[in-house]
């Protein structure tokens, strides 16, 4: 028996029952958001439907889908908070990098 198996059995002695989240419910949400994204993305922009509004809606839906995958499929919702901070740190840094690059891009 290797170390990983010993640790897991030790863990499972205290957590006998494994409850599974509603994975199919998450799947239907992801599917619905993907279809909605395709609809929003394919609509032509104009004065009544500005490009900024389209981008905001698409990014919000993408972030929502990513959050569903991280929280339920990757079980982040059921983990300790520190693990969530580890996962969230690169996202915050990336947004920071993007905004740091914007002035440079605008002046090219």
């Amino acid at each position: 028996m290797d170390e990983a198996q010993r640790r897991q059995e030790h863990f499972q002695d205290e957590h006998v029952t494994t409850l599974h989240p509603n994975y199919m419910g998450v799947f239907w949400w992801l599917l619905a958001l993907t279809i909605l994204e395709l609809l929003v993305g394919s609509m032509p922009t104009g004065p009544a439907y500005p490009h900024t509004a389209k981008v905001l809606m698409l990014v919000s839906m993408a972030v929502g889908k990513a959050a569903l995958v991280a929280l339920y499929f990757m079980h982040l919702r059921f983990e300790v908070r520190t693990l969530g901070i580890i996962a969230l740190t690169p996202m915050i840094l990336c947004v920071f990098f993007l905004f740091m690059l914007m002035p440079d891009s605008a002046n090219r």
Partner: protein
Amino acid sequence: MSQAAAVGHAAVDTYESPLTPESWSKLAMWIFLAGDAMSFGGLLAAYGALRYGSPNWPVPMSVLGIFMTGVMTFLLICSSVTMVKALAAIQDGDSRRMCMFLGLTILGGITFLVMQAFEWTHLIHEGLGLSQNPWGASQFGTTFFMTTGFHGCHVFGGVCYLTTILIQGLRGKYSRTNWSSVETLGLYWHFVDLVWILVFTFVYLV
């Protein structure tokens, strides 16, 4: 070492981890994924910055096949579901069901790669390259191939990883009390799905 110190040292549970009590590999995978997310974040940030600063950036929806990419996205979402189902199966002690779902996940990954290869071939024939773009800014080709290619490499790596775990599963390595490797694999595969959700939005739809 004094007897008291020796007793005190022995009292420490060497198998205890405050973040992921069930396995160290899970913590290691999370740290790896955090680093990997920075790589993808850098690529997407570069894409955003180049696009923002370019006056003749093509409208992605008009040059890229959105319907096929939508199907690819659907495939990866389905493969994520089969992956969690595989983990749930082995947590319930059903090794055969786990192997079936892992097989379906591999099938989803391979189909995704085939579709991506088809899309790339089509775009290259249209004239899109690493430094050329018939529809406008040349950086479009660079960022498109770098971002989707880097993700494709991750999918290929995931398919190899999945196949390894499936072979071990078929040999009876995993059971109701030993599934941490399947969970760690699942984290990697879901990350690949999560990144594609963002790539799909930023590169294809926005």
